[in-house]
């Protein structure tokens, strides 16, 4: 359990810093609100409608890909911890694992799943139609 104490302290420090910063700025800063100041954006278009509008399916796709690579990284953690005992054999396995997923990465990249509406996907769409 000893090792976890430092993590607990870390969490407490992080949360405490955020909390105290917000509280302190609220307490110490002068507060003179005006209509302009309390608007969400001081300049630009006035925001209209609900902030939660329908998101594009692209967000979902990116989240899905993130999840899959996240699982990949999660597998590296126990390998890193057991690195010395496993030697080159373990290294070879991880390289194979990464190489297989690299093929997936190439696929995802080339398919334009990571592009955010730049000219490449536009061209691909034009060619397809």
């Amino acid at each position: 359990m000893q090792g976890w104490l430092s993590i607990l302290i870390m969490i407490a420090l992080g949360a405490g810093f955020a909390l105290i910063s917000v509280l302190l700025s609220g307490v110490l800063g002068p507060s003179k609100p005006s209509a302009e100041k309390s608007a969400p954006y001081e300049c630009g278009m006035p925001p209209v409608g609900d902030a939660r509008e329908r998101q594009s399916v692209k967000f979902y796709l990116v989240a899905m890909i993130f999840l899959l690579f996240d699982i990949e990284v999660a597998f590296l953690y126990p390998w890193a911890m057991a690195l010395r005992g496993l030697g080159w054999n373990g290294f070879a396995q991880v390289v194979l694992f990464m190489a297989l997923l690299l093929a997936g990465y190439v696929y995802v990249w080339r398919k334009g799943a990571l592009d955010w509406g730049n000219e490449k996907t536009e061209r691909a769409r034009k060619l397809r139609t």
Partner: protein
Amino acid sequence: MTPGALNAIVPMACVTAAGIAAMVAESFREPGEHMPIAGLGLVGLIGAAISAVLLWNHNTSSFGLVSADNFGLFVTLILVCVGVLTLAISGPTIERERLPAGEHYALTLFALAGMMLMATATDLLVIFLALEVLSLAVYVLTGLRRDSPVASEAAFKYFLLGAFSSAFFLYGIAFTYGVTGSTHLDRIGSVIAAGAAQETLMQRLALGLLLVGFAFKVSAVPFHMWTPDAYEGAPSSVTGFMSTGVKAAAFAAFVRVFLSAFEPMRADWGAVLWVVAAATMILGTVVGVVQPNIKRMLAYSSIAHGGYLLVALLSGNDLGKGAVLFYLLTYAVTNLGAFGVIGLLESAGTQPSAISHQPFIPATGHQPPNDQVRDYAGLWHTHPMLAGLMTVFLLSLSGFPPMAGFIAKWYVFTAAMKAGYSGLAIIGVLTSVVSVFFYLRVVVMMYMTEGERPAAFPAVPRMAGLALVVSAIVIFYLGILPARVLDWAAQSIGTIF
């Protein structure tokens, strides 16, 4: 690591490599560019077939988790047939539906690799991983027609129910591990046989959960609900693929798990499986009779065939185990042939000159898919070759004498009689007789009814035509001279059980 330690996984490694190659090739394909990706898959499958033949009788094992015994290799070879036929017949469907070709082939190859792994794995954990690889790939293949609401619904239903059944299966593995302390089939078998595990209730729970998982994958009643929808919604080539490949892989693992590890608990699962097999045969046949859609009809036919396979599994004697293998091979060739014809005729429906006689055309602007039984009216006059091939496939499915289906069914029922399951054998024979009715309905439609459809058929692609003709020849070969293949099947079960 000693040289040769990896031998057992060579067949599936070939297929996986082909799948990855297909995936990378697809990602470097410019839009509109044609690439021989199906050829890549063919190379991988041929590699798998060669390595499987070379491994025959060697009984090798890798990592203690995968065992290339003759049983697994026989199923691997069935899967190679499934793969080759699928690659050959999927061309027209892909073009007609404008499916993403590279993904279609890559996912098919990954699914095949998963199936091969499932058929050769000797550890529940690996069986589960293989099951997931093949299931995920097949879910996606089912939903490949993204502009079709029917396909989306099918994929969604299949995915939800499939994920649910996978959870059951995983839960069963967890309980098995809790009771026996291992996921390895040999050790599970010895622990259960020794009666060392006192927790009989837990043990039964584990057994039941695993049974649910398998029953779902082989679409046995009452876990068959997804089958008609998924088969109807998937593109025809995919339907042919999943009805044969998934069945072969799932039954291989089913036989391995239940007739080796859980054989000592036969008293517990025998009665349950009896009821399931009987219900599966009866429901598949009776509901199949009233289906107007040919894909749904073949889905119920596939459920009924699952019932016959369950009878063979339940028999559990050498004859029964050999019958499972022979039946799977026969069913794979026959059913893929039938779906190949369906896929070609569907393609015919999109010809601009083909005027639909259906009362409405869906708002999407697509022609109706041309998959009703009455769409086959008069096929004999417009395309005698396809009508003849379809007749062979349907008669073989119903189990008519000179075709392979007859020998397969006969073998199953003999095994059941020998094992003392005469009740099941009688149900099987009766349902077979009833099933003749719905297969013949299509045949009668093709020959004796005048079609309203103008004869606007595209030329049958050479690959697909060749594959269909070869399938028909194989069906006759297996039906007339089955001795050699039956011998191989009998040999392959001798090595493990």
